[in-house]
């Protein structure tokens, strides 16, 4: 009989955290993950998974195996992390995360390979807030006092006057596009910009905001360019 809590699942804004018992044999661990996931498959499908190996040392092949296992459950491995016992004791959570790309040596994992898109068919007014893991498209305005927090890109088919956070889970390639881009505050991944205090010229063309050289830049939207991030 496998110990009940050798795998625990927790939701977070970044995705689903799988905490894995570091003391267990990897193959048994895989069986255990499979069983846990089959219980809640339909509920979790499409989600991104962060695997926390605790103090276990993981081999690149093991990460590949894990990724395939998750794929069979329509889940996507976003990153893996492990932590030294001292750090874990000090913070109570896993830190010291190593990039899955480095760990799986050449095994490129796209963090947002399968994003969903939420279509909002109205104007977002002051006090209204949208929080979504994927892309958000608004068919209307986003008024001052409204906010959108999206894991992916944000597209506003109207005037954007409120606060938008694109790539909220840390994706620096996320972009914000609006027919009239005049936000109070614009956040992409961990970058925050705000509207200048002085009155500025109002845009009269669609514009796009993205991170270039670590700074959020706003430029005129040109459809012929490959604007969205490449997959």
């Amino acid at each position, binding site marked *: 009989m496998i110990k009940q809590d050798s795998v625990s699942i927790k939701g977070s804004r970044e995705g689903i955290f799988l905490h894995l018992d570091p003391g267990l044999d990897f193959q048994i661990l895989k069986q255990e993950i499979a069983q846990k996931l089959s219980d809640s498959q339909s509920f979790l499908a499409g989600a991104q998974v962060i695997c926390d190996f605790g103090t276990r040392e993981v081999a690149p092949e093991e990460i590949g195996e894990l990724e395939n296992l998750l794929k069979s459950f329509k889940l996507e491995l976003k990153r893996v992390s492990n932590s030294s016992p001292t750090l874990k004791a000090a913070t109570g959570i896993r830190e010291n995360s190593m990039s899955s790309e480095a760990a799986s040596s050449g095994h490129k994992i796209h963090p947002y390979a399968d994003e969903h898109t939420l279509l909002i068919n*109205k104007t977002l007014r002051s006090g209204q807030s949208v929080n979504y893991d994927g892309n958000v498209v608004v068919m209307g305005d986003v008024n001052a006092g409204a906010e959108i927090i999206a894991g992916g890109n944000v597209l506003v088919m109207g005037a954007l006057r409120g606060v938008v956070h694109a790539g909220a889970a840390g994706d620096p390639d996320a972009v914000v596009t609006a027919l009239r881009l005049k936000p109070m505050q614009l956040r992409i991944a961990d970058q925050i910009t705000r509207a200048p205090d002085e009155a500025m010229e109002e845009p009269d063309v669609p514009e796009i905001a993205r991170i270039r050289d670590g700074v959020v830049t706003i430029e005129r939207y040109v459809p012929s360019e490959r604007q969205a991030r490449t997959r």
Partner: protein
Amino acid sequence: MGEVIVITSGKGGVGKTTTTANISTGLAALNYKVVMIDTDIGLRNLDVVMGLENRIVYDIVDVVQGNCRLKQALIKDKRFENLFLLPAAQTKDKNSVNTDQMKELVGNLKPEFDYIVIDCPAGIEQGFKNAIAAAERAIVVTNPEISAVRDADRIIGLLEAAELHDPMLIINRLRPAMVKKGDMMNIVDVEDILAIKILGVVPEDEAIVISTNRGEPAVLEQTSKAGQAYRNIVKRITGEDVALMNLEEADGLVSKLKKLMGIK
């Protein structure tokens, strides 16, 4: 069956009560049977603006708590036989009434009146919820200034969430001279942000201050510009198609002469 209209704004001081008084009086002047309900419990004003303060015996909380019959709490207006006021309580607070009680109360008034006009308190708490609970139509009052417009936007969102669709906008206290100089938001600026139908634009008018202090709604004053604006709003509420009035300041003699001679 009467139509239930709530007058709301979010922000305080934009002219909800003045608007309620003028619209209701204007409707009554057109021979509709009208009742105003003041839901600003604890901070009632509508009775003062209507000049009916000294006639209050029972109020909305008395009705809800069963201390009196609904008919006993209704105050008949001084000017119109067919205009009534259900005053708010001054010594209680907004939580003395809940939304179900409000719906029942309005339901009892509906068969008796053509229009039930509800004066909503400022804010978005219980008082607001009570005021909109029984409403079928909403009129959002705002001023041409950014804070009032922001609050109006919030209110429109909340009205949508409460399934009170297609609210209409009254832009109150517009100062045409300031708009002309670019010192005040104009109608298009406000319309751009709020994107709802404009029911009317009321210019800033000293007559309102005077009439409010006297307890005589300006809608009855033929010479007042604000009064004219309210009369037009009332007509639009009843379904008549009235164009927005020209709010340009009345021309002086010199400019009139210039116009006559074709000099701009």
